[in-house]
């Protein structure tokens, strides 16, 4: 199981600014190990963020997103105390969901 995401959700004016740091290798599938064998691709493919049951951002990623991906976005309609839930799924079917409270 992967390490938890670090999520920070803060009010920025009338919007909520969300910053997410995920823990993932994001292996490209291009790299070779010391024996010359290709290291298979292993990367997050889908990211979804929800607030009060509504999707506020969804993303499709390829292996070119950096290792331990960082993501920031802003949405309207949130208030302090609300929860933002982020889920990612990688190409091996692994999944991780974490949440943060808007402050």
């Amino acid at each position, binding site marked *: 199981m992967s390490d938890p995401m670090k999520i920070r959700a803060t009010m920025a004016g009338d919007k909520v600014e969300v910053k997410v740091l995920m823990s993932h290798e994001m292996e490209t599938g291009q790299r070779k190990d010391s024996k010359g064998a290709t290291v298979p691709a292993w990367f997050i493919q889908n990211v979804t963020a929800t607030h009060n049951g509504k999707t*506020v951002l969804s993303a499709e990623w390829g292996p070119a997103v950096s290792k331990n991906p*960082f*993501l920031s*976005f802003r949405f*309207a309609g949130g208030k302090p105390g609300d929860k933002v839930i982020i889920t990612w799924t990688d190409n091996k079917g*692994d999944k991780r969901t974490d949440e943060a409270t808007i402050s």
Partner: protein
Amino acid sequence: MNKGRRDVLKGAGGTAVLGLALAAGLFRSGGARADWNKAAFETKSLSDAVKAMGGGAPVESKDIVITSPDIAENGAVVPFTIASKLPKTASIAILVEKNPNILAADFQFPDGTEPWVNTRVKMGQTSNVIALVKADGKFYYASKEVKVTLGGCGG
């Protein structure tokens, strides 16, 4: 990835019973996710990527702003902020022209979410980086060259 299974998934589109079986079994095992545009992530040029996303020829736009370093010392972690001022922006994709596959990431913005995103991508070498925006059903783009100095000596 399993090409055979992808074809099976495509063929099974209209068959409800088989669809359910697939939803219960195969989808969970990953590898061939229905909500991941495999064709787009395998393209090598902007026009092919747009085609795989179901669009026509993209139009260059000054309403898309790419903020990034001009020179990246570490190609493994290059920060980008993309903002779109185009009305009805639905998605923003980041493409790195000289990467093995051009499409790095595609973000979808529902109503209420600002068409603005900040993330980090890998760049194999100095390259044009393209921000591709889908707004009101049409595709627009802006591009910027980012120099990558491998080895991190800043030269």
